[in-house]
C-alpha cells in the first residue's frame, strides 16, 4: 500500500498490467522516453522496452487505427490521446471500427483496447484542453465509458478496463490528477495524500466496470456525478448542510442503474451534475432514466447542473465551470417543494 495521486495510480496500473500480460502495448504522443505530458506513462519504456511503450506520430486517427490492427492481431493496446480535445481525428476509427467490429463480425474479432485521455476543465486550458466529450462516446453502442474520480478507483478501473474484452474509453479528470477539487478555484489545492482514496495497493486489483460507488450516504436527495464533479458536489453538499446521497457513477456505460434507482426511490429527489455542456449531455440521459424508472417516487423535478452550451471559454473559465454557486442554486431548487 502506498499513497498515490491519480497519475501515480494510473502509472502503477500500466506497470502491473504490462508485467502480467505480454500482449499489453502502450503508445501515444510523447508517452515513450519522456513518459507523457502528464507523466502517466513515466518509466514504462525503460522497464518494458521501446516496442511495448513508444512515441506515436501526432495522428490520433493513426493511433486508433493501428491499435485496431494490433487488437485484431491479438494484442491489448492501451493508447493515450494526449487531451480528450484531440480525440476527434480518431473519432471515425473509434465509432465506425473500434465500437462495431465485434458486432459486425459476429464475435469473430473483438477489440480489447483502452483509449485513455485526460479530459475536463479547471486548468485554464482554453477550448482545446478543457472539453468533456464523454457523451459523444456514451452514445455509441459497443463502447464502454469509464471516468474515475480517485487514485484507488483510477488504478482499479484501469486494470479492469485493460482486462475487459471490449473497448473502453477511459477519461481521466485532469483537474484532480494531483488532488480533489472542491470547486473553489481560489483556494489552495488539497493534495491526494490527505484523502483516504489515495491509499492504493502496489499490486493487482480491480474496481469492476459497471458499478457505481455511493460516496456519501444521505436521505434528502440523490446526486449523480462523475469525475471532478464528484468532489465539487461533495463540497457543495457539506457547505449547504444538505443530507444528500452522492453517487459516483465511475462507469457511464454500462451504467449501474440499480444503485441509482435504489437511491432515488429512497430520497425522492435527484440532481444530475456534469461538467460537460448541457444539451444532449450524459446528464440528459440520466435525467430521462430517473424519470422513466422512478417517476412515482419523485417529489420534485430532476435538476441538472452543467457547463454552458458554449465552447470552453478561456478567461471566463470560472463563469463557465459548474461550481459551488450553480450547485447551491440547484440544491435549493430540488429541495424547495
Amino acid at each position, binding site marked *: 500500500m502506498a499513497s498515490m495521486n491519480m497519475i501515480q495510480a494510473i502509472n502503477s496500473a500500466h506497470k502491473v498490467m504490462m508485467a502480467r500480460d505480454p500482449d499489453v502495448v502502450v503508445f501515444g504522443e510523447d508517452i515513450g522516453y519522456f513518459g507523457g505530458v502528464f507523466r502517466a506513462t513515466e518509466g514504462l519504456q525503460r522497464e518494458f522496452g521501446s*516496442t511495448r511503450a513508444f512515441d506515436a506520430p501526432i495522428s490520433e*486517427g*493513426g493511433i486508433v487505427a493501428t491499435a485496431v490492427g494490433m487488437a485484431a*492481431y491479438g494484442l491489448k493496446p492501451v493508447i493515450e490521446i494526449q487531451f480528450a480535445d484531440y480525440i476527434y481525428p480518431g473519432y471515425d476509427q473509434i465509432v465506425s471500427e473500434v465500437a462495431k467490429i465485434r458486432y459486425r*463480425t459476429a464475435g469473430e474479432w473483438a477489440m480489447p483496447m483502452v483509449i485513455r485521455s485526460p479530459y475536463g476543465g479547471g486548468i485554464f486550458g482554453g477550448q482545446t484542453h478543457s472539453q468533456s466529450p464523454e457523451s459523444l462516446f456514451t452514445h455509441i453502442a459497443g463502447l464502454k465509458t469509464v471516468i474515475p474520480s480517485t487514485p484507488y478507483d483510477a488504478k482499479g478501473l484501469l486494470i479492469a478496463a485493460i482486462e475487459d474484452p471490449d473497448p473502453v474509453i477511459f477519461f481521466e479528470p485532469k483537474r484532480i490528477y494531483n488532488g480533489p477539487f472542491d470547486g473553489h478555484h481560489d483556494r489552495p489545492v488539497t493534495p491526494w495524500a490527505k484523502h483516504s482514496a489515495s491509499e492504493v495497493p502496489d499490486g493487482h486489483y480491480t474496481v469492476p466496470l459497471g458499478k457505481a460507488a455511493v460516496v456519501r450516504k444521505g436521505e434528502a436527495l440523490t446526486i449523480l456525478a462523475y469525475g471532478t464533479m464528484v468532489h465539487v458536489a461533495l463540497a457543495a453538499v457539506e457547505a449547504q448542510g444538505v443530507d444528500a446521497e452522492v453517487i459516483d457513477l465511475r462507469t457511464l456505460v*454500462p451504467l449501474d*442503474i440499480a444503485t441509482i434507482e435504489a437511491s432515488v426511490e429512497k430520497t425522492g429527489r435527484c440532481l444530475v451534475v456534469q461538467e460537460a455542456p448541457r444539451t444532449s449531455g450524459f446528464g440528459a440521459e440520466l435525467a430521462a432514466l430517473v424519470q422513466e424508472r422512478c417517476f412515482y417516487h419523485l417529489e420534485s423535478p430532476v435538476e441538472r447542473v452543467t457547463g454552458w452550451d458554449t465552447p470552453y471559454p478561456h478567461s471566463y473559465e470560472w463563469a463557465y465551470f459548474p461550481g459551488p454557486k450553480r450547485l447551491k442554486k440547484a440544491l435549493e431548487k430540488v429541495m424547495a417543494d
Partner: protein
Amino acid sequence: MSDKDPSKLKPNRPQLALHVPEPPFRPGDTPDFLSLNIPAAGEAARPDVTAAPADTHPLTTQLVRVLDDQHQAVDPWDPKLDPDTLRKMLRDMVTVRVFDDRMYRAQRQGKTSFYMKCTGEEAIAVAAAAALTQEDMHFPTYRQQGLLVARGYPLKDMMCQIYSNKGDKLKGRQLPIMYSDKAHGFFSISGNLGTQFPQAVGWAMASAIKGDSRIAMGWIGDGATAEGDFHAGMTFAAVYNVPVVLAVVNNQWAISSFSGIAGAERATFAQRAVGYGIAGLRVDGNDALAVYAAVRWAADRARSNNGPTLIEFFTYRAAGHSTSDDPSGYRPANEAKAWPLGDPIERLKAHLIALGEWDEERHSAFAAEADATVRAAQKEAEKLGILPQQGKDDIGSMFEDVYAEMPWHIAEQRDQAVDEAR
C-alpha cells in the same frame, strides 16, 4: 456588403482561378488513351528486395509489366511461375467473374439489396493472394473478393453473407459483400473508406512487436487515398519500418469521380511513396504476372525487415461502382473496351495458350465448370434463404455481440423488440 464584393478586387493583381479537374472523356465522347504512353513489358527495372527506397522511386512513374503483346512473359519481373500456379490463378479469376455475374443478377432479381463487381480487376486480388502465404493478413476493400476465392473460401458462404440468410456467419448484420473471415486471413470489410489501410499497418506492427514472421497487406482505392487514414497508414508504416504491403487499386473511378479528383493529375499514386521515403512500385494491374511479381517482391522485402512498399495497381473499373450505380451517366459506355491494358483474364489465358499449357477447349470447359460450380453453390445458399425472407426470425440475435456480455440496457431493449415483433 460581402467581403467577396468584386469591387474590392485589386485590379493590378492577376485574378485567381480554381482548377476543377475533369476526366478526358464524358458520355458521347470517343475514348482514346494514347496519351497514357503505356511502356512495353520489360522496360521497368527490378531492384533487389533489399534496395534503398530511393532506388525504387523511378518505378513510381513507370509501369511494371511482365506479359508482352505476344503474350510472352519477359524479364526482369517475370516471376517464373509453374503452369499449375498460372492455371490456378486463371481459374480463380474466371470463377470470380462468374460469381460476380451471378450475384449481380441475384441482386437484380431482388434476392439481395446490393452487390459490387470487380470486373477487369480480377488479376489484382487473385495474384496478390497467390503471392502471399495463407497466414498473412489482408485488410481489403470491398473489391477484393478474389482474395477469398483464391484462398479457397467456400462460395456458398460468400453467398450466404450476400443473402444475409441462415448460413450467414455475420448473422445478417452486414451489407452484402462486407465479408469477414479470420481463418482465411481476410479482415472484416468496412464501408467507411480507407479505415482498413492504417489498420493493416497496426496488424503488421503487432506481428513485428511479437517477432512473428507473418505480414499484412492493406488495400485502398484511388479515391480513398484522399482520406486522412491513407496518410496515417503511410506515416506509421514509414516511421516504424513496418512489414506491410500497401496497395492502391487505381481503377480510375471513385463512383463518378475520376482519379484526378483524388490528385492523379499531379502525380501517380505510387509517387506518394517518395515523400514518405518508402519503396514504391507502379504496376499493370491487368497483368496477373506483374501483380504477382510486385506483391511477392514487396512481401519478400517486408519479411526481411527491409520495410513497407506502396504499390499502385493501374487498372480500370469495367463495371459500375455497385448495383446502385449507372456509369452511363458520367463516362463513355465503351471506355472499358478502349482501356489499353486489356482484360486480365484474356491476357493470362493467352499467355497460358502461348506456353502450350492451355487451349480454347479447356478454357470453355473450365468456364462451363465454373458456371456450374457457382450455380450449385447458389442453389445451396438459397436453400438457406434470400434477403427478403430475413430479419424476421430470432429478432433477439440483433442485440448480441454489441459487447462480450449483454448489459442491462441492451437486454431491456431486446425484450422490447422481441415483444414488438410478436
